[in-house]
């Protein structure tokens, strides 16, 4: 290796220790696939030894399952257990903490809910985030919310502005106007089931819709593609136009948000677990659900639960490994990678100040979220950055293989190389990189999936086993997970 100019310079100065290349520690964390793949690979389990009769079993301890539990408990129904395969419940809302800050592992915000999102508002009122119609100002994302690295420097906001042409601006304006019209149609709601009507948009991709609308600005196309990757883990060409429009048209912004916390949605999770922890059984992988007369036999570890009702809140694709007659699941799932970087010296950068969400233009990643942004400190000298990367280009199956095939060092290098575009000295500022690989992070609303017969059937509860994962909505966001969990719980309560 030829020494760099700087190494040469300091070597000339009597071989002094360099302020240079430092060792970065870290590894893979929360490896769900290890437990999950025992289901897929049909590993033989030892038989259950204890039998428990219980009216309701909830399968899956992510936001959907916990929301079902929250609803049951709130309605005064306590005879149920929630089974979670991981050592910690929470799914995509899990978080971590180090000596600098708490930080999210995946879901990190909830947009300020509209009036239709009654359950989200109810939950936020319960947690004191909403009181007398006012949002807690410490939970609303602080300024500056977003910035974009473009042409060598950071600008405020995500809509590209540096070197934008009049055509770019005109198309952004026209795009905004169209979204306003869609919003006014009241079909793009959260929860989506309340308003969803028209299937025409669902039959073409976002990309095709953009062409149809004569949107050819590179900036606008990047922006829309970024939004699809950010919310659905999919490229614009692989996303249903209905879902694409939903992203922009579903939110009425009367208050500048979103709601967020240092640990992201881990904050909501902690509050829910404090209340509902007694129902939760962790490391309880459900390996089989058998129909036995009018009952269900749910096998998990040493236990066999004999239940009247089952709420299946785990990702719906898992049903095919545990149910005798699994339903057709019309979704693909997007593989994701998230990483938490311990930043012990703030990296050099040019332009707009560090924001909450920091995006690099034309990067395959989604950028990073600064975990200490929601802290009260006025001066920051250390932080934790949560880096998001939806492996969107190419078939999900191939990307899942890639996700597992590459070792930690490869991913770490890829992440640091990406960040080095905006922060040349990033390698001198990072002491640790922990990486979480999620093979099936979220349902992907591909063309035709949302208005498919298969999705409608899944989403309509019937019988004694109901599905409740957010993927029933066609895309995975907190509000949909909560809505599916709560409505599944209501359905069960009506029939018990």
């Amino acid at each position, binding site marked *: 290796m030829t020494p760099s100019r700087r190494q040469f*310079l300091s070597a000339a100065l009597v071989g002094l220790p360099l302020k240079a290349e430092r060792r970065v520690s870290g590894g893979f964390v929360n490896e769900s696939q290890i437990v999950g793949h025992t289901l897929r690979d049909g590993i033989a389990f030892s038989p259950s030894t204890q039998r428990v009769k219980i009216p309701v079993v909830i399968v899956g301890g992510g936001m959907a399952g916990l929301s079902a539990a929250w609803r049951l408990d709130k309605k005064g129904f306590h005879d149920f257990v929630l089974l979670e395969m991981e050592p910690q419940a929470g799914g995509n809302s899990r978080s971590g903490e180090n000596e600098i800050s708490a930080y999210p592992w995946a879901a990190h915000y909830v947009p300020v809910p509209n009036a239709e999102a009654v359950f989200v508002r109810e939950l936020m009122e319960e947690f004191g985030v909403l009181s007398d119609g006012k949002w807690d*100002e410490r939970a609303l994302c602080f300024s500056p919310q977003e910035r974009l690295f473009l042409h060598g420097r950071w600008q405020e906001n995500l809509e590209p502005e540096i070197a934008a042409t009049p055509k770019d601006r005109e198309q952004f304006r026209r795009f905004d106007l169209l979204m306003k019209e869609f919003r006014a149609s009241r079909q793009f709601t959260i929860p989506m089931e309340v308003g969803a009507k028209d299937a025409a948009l669902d039959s073409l991709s976002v990309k095709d819709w953009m062409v149809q609308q004569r949107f050819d600005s590179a900036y606008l196309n990047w922006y829309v593609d970024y939004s699809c990757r950010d919310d659905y883990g999919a490229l614009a060409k692989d996303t249903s136009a209905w879902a694409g429009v939903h992203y922009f048209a579903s939110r009425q912004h009367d208050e500048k948000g979103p709601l967020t916390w240092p640990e992201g949605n881990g904050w909501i999770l902690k509050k829910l677990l404090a209340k509902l922890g007694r129902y939760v059984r962790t490391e309880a992988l459900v390996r089989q659900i058998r129909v036995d007369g009018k009952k269900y036999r749910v096998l998990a570890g040493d236990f066999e639960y004999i239940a009247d009702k089952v709420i299946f809140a785990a990702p719906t694709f898992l049903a095919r490994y545990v149910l005798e007659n699994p339903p057709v699941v019309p979704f693909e799932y997007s593989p994701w990678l998230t990483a938490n970087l311990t930043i012990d010296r703030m990296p050099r950068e040019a332009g707009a100040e560090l924001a909450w969400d920091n995006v690099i233009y034309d990067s395959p990643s989604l950028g990073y979220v600064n975990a200490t942004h929601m802290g009260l400190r006025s001066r920051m000298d250390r932080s934790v950055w949560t880096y998001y990367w939806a492996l969107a280009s190419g078939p999900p199956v191939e990307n899942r293989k890639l996700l597992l095939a590459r070792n930690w060092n490869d991913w770490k290098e890829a992440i640091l190389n990406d960040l080095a575009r905006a922060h040349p000295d990033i390698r001198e500022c990072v002491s640790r990189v922990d990486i979480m690989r999620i093979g099936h992070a979220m349902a992907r609303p591909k063309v035709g999936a949302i208005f498919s017969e298969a999705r409608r059937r899944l989403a309509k509860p019937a019988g004694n086993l109901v599905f409740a994962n957010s993927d029933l909505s066609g895309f995975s966001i907190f509000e949909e997970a909560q809505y599916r969990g709560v409505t599944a719980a209501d359905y069960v309560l009506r029939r018990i």
Partner: protein
Amino acid sequence: MSAVLFLSVFLIAACGLIYELIAGTLASYLLGDSVLQFSTVIGAYLFAMGIGSFLSRFVGRGLVARFIQIELMVGLVGGFSSSFLFAAFAYTQSFRLVLYLLVVLVGTLVGLEIPLLMRILKDRFQFRDLVSHVLTFDYLGALGASLLFPLLLVPKLGLVRSAILFGMINAGVALWTTFLFRDQIGRVIGLRASGITVLALLGCGMVGADYISAAADNNLYADEVIFSRQTRYQRIVLTKWKDDVRLFLSSHLQFSSRDEYRYHEALVHPGLAPIAGAKHVLVLGGGDGLAVREILKYPNVEAITLVDLDPEMTKLFRTNPMLTALNRDSLNSNKLRVINEDAFPWLDTNREVFDFVVVDFPDPTNYSLGKLYTTAFYRLLAKHVSTRGAIVVQSTSPLFARQSYWCIVSTLRQTGLKTYPYHVYVPSFGEWGFVLAAAREYELPSQLPEGMKFLTLETLPELFRFPNDMRPMDVEPNRLNDQILVRLYEREWRDIAH
């Protein structure tokens, strides 16, 4: 001939002293604590000169050639000394090691010069005259250099270029010597070639000096920098011109000792004087101790809590004699408790209640500082004020940044407290604004402490009157999730600057 020789002595002596001064200045500039840095640099340098003198006895034949080589080495090493030191500070962790190695190296070479020169000249002069003349010009050179350095070189050329200039003088003396003593040297051509090479290298350095000195911010300040330190949080710079001491934090002027009394009297007394029997006072920011100095004029105040993020700031204003004279040693008062923490989280975890709170933060130049000017911050602050108490906030200029000023007023009003805006003229700042906030109706004080230089009871009501160009504006409050103040402030001050 002899005049020319003694001019050489004069020049090399000046060069030698310049390198020493540069090392000392750079060390105190970059490391702080100038007494320590200068003492150790001078000590090491003189000691190294002793080593040089000692080593001179081992130089035998070819005295003149040796002398020329040493001159060239001094020129090269000394000339690039400040560039080396800036680079060492920027790129290695061992600035001190490089500093002392360089000081010893240059000192040793310089220590060789005079003994060798005296031996070269010993056959041309009586010993008595030789010693007398050489030392006379040596000391004269030192005087010239020590006067030139602070008055002309540092202000006009900066440290990097000054060093290079004197390196060129050393090299020039070397070249010149090849002509003076050409009959005593064997390889004249080789020596001249090296001399020209060294000169050319230094010349390149001179041209490229801007790149090196960009690291130093000497040019930023109009007056002489007497203290400069990069702490974890900010760059503290003190400048002095005649009796005017100025403090800059990250390049923003904080006070000028000539008129700070106007600012600090106005900051403290309109709010504190009417609160009869105020006992507990909180100061947020204000690590210079000047607000505390004013608060200590009230014997009824029993305890003052000062929360300032930067421990180096409070340490500086507690120990530096020039600064303790300015704040009347207020930071060493036994009524004072200093807490070096970030104010917002500190308030958030603390439950104490105060009779008077002075908020003296830097202006909201970025979103991080802007957090300290939000409804969330003021609501939290309001919980720490007793019912009869008051808050005063330094609020930038209502003249230069009118919207920003009234935005702060509007933000404070969101707490439910009543607000009383006022302003004062501080020459070094211009027209400056403050906002008082209290639950009760504000009453002008009936009495002020002794020794006011600016405020009087008669003129106090004037401060609360706003002429037409500063009159109130309707501005949205500044919120954590929508910091309009930072954007207003940036726009308004940019308009002033251009």
